[in-house]
């Protein structure tokens, strides 16, 4: 019994991170058609910021979490202003916006990742944080993993609540349903787009900060999370935040079970198998009606 609990819980902990990354990416794509391949690079920036705070400033990484979110939010505003505003203004159609923003984020990925290599080198970095074992129901976890899981789920739920219950959230959902209709009733794209892009990056940064508490970090750490987030979005359906949360947790568990019963080096193959199967069978997502 405790064996299954441990396995599923391990999956859920990874899945919580997947969910946070995927929700941010999904918001950006659902609202602005920006498929931000560089999303994982901003996760990596969040991880490095936290690592710097923990090792140089000797700060508690959890206390530093809001700072990471704020910094990444501001970076997001800047990146949107410099890159994506021009694309959405000059492109003749939605498809062109998609293609160009994909290429730009491809460029961003190389830019940010290699800049990180220049700044910090290729070594793995890390710090110890709350790595004490805790026992729950006969299963053993390190405390930092539980903290990470709690914060990941909390971040996702807060965002869900904001989208569902506040006026801003309503505006975002309206824009996803019908951009023209939303503009007709007075929702301001010029404000909403950069803010949502910034929130997406802030979520990526938080995910990176949380990851740095558990794993060692490197400039290349972000890329797999981008790909995984994409798989999660496909599972949950484009634009669906609840779908991204459930899909993220689900993929985490599937990976944990699959890796246990086959081999850890098959992780990527498993995720891709799920991805292609879902795309073939239910291209609109598992939970689409």
């Amino acid at each position, binding site marked *: 019994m405790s064996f299954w609990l441990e396995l599923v819980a391990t999956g859920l902990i990874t899945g919580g991170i997947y969910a946070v990354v995927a929700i941010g990416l999904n918001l950006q*794509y659902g609202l602005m*058609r920006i*498929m931000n*391949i560089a999303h994982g690079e901003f996760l990596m920036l969040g991880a490095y910021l936290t690592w710097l705070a923990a090792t140089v400033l000797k700060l508690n990484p959890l206390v530093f979490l809001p700072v990471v979110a704020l910094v990444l939010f501001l970076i997001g505003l800047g990146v949107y202003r410099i*890159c994506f505003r*021009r*694309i959405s203004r000059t492109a003749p159609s939605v*498809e062109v916006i*998609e*293609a*160009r923003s*994909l*290429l*730009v984020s*491809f*460029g*961003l*990925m*190389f*830019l*940010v*990742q*290699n*800049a990180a*290599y*220049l700044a910090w080198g290729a070594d793995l970095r890390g710090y110890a944080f709350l790595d004490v074992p805790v026992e729950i129901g006969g299963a053993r976890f390190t405390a930092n993993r539980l903290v990470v899981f709690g914060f990941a789920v909390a971040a996702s739920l807060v965002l869900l609540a904001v989208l569902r219950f506040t006026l801003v959230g309503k505006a975002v959902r309206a824009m996803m349903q019908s951009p023209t209709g939303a503009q007709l009733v007075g929702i301001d794209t010029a404000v909403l787009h950069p803010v949502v892009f910034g929130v997406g990056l802030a979520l990526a940064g938080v995910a990176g900060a949380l990851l740095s508490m558990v794993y060692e970090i490197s400039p290349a750490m972000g890329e797999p999370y981008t*790909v995984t987030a*994409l798989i999660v979005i*496909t599972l949950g359906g484009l634009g669906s935040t609840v779908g991204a949360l459930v899909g993220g947790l689900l993929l985490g568990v599937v990976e944990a079970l699959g890796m246990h019963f086959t*081999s850890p*080096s*098959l992780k*990527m*193959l498993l995720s*891709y198998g799920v*991805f*292609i199967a879902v*795309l*073939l069978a239910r*291209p609109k997502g598992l939970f689409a009606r």
Partner: protein
Amino acid sequence: MKPRHALLAVLVGLLAAAPWMLSDFMLSLVLTCLMYAGLTVTWAMFSGATNYLSLATAAFFGIGAYVTAWGFGALPYAVVVPLGGVASAVFAALIGAAVLHLRGAYFAVLTFGLGELVRHAITYFEKSYAHTVGRVIANPPESTSVYLTVLAIAAAAVWASVAVRRSRFGLALAGIGADEERAETLGVNTRRTKIAGFALSAFFAGALGAAMAVRWTYIEPNSVFNPFIGFQTVLIAMVGGAHTLIGPLVSSVVFSVLTEFLRLQFPYLFLTLLGLALILLVLYLPGGLASLWPILRARIAALGARLAALEGEGARG
């Protein structure tokens, strides 16, 4: 179109003489140029025409390279190279059949992940069944024959993309790029056309991978499935203008020279700047350098007209 064919023939003839005229360093530089020219032209043949952004070049290239890694020795070089192309084309056709109904970002990201997928699959396979990480290529063919093979593939790639452009098949590809539903209404079998185009461009990437693999002597998944190859291909095509033929050819020469000189000395800085270049290019010159040409031509024509007008005035006065 005849003079253009003659020009191509002369160019290929000159390049074929290169091994006996150039130093080893220059020859390897020309080889890199030819490799990227072949990759880019055939990438543009499919992705430039259809607007299906494929990031799978690294996967096709790597598959070709692994065909060499597994087959070379047992089979002669001249068999391994086309075999690498065929293996990539078959892989592309299978994947294409599964995912080419996806448009836009989904397709791009899925193909981006293909390289990773194949890399992990081969790493896993080699570790668990062959118990190796990489493979050594014993007795590689001499550099002249490698060079001539790559030249032949690159020339064939250019020839194929010219031929495709002027054929019904090429028109169908361009029709899909302009408006897929309209193309389908007009009687194009879009599914079959897309799969064939994707497989054809994969064939050349695979053949180039198979031909180039012998130059490395030691082959491992991480080096031949290098995402940089796919990135560079897309970048070169975008810089040159993916809808044209000359644009990608010219920019592949420029980029190969830059890469050869800068990448080894400042690897991270070089890639950072390449990323920046791609961003600036998409933002400010989305049609590539080739889109400057009509503007330039119009300016020259306008200038000529003004000069003629001035001369006319001078004659009257």
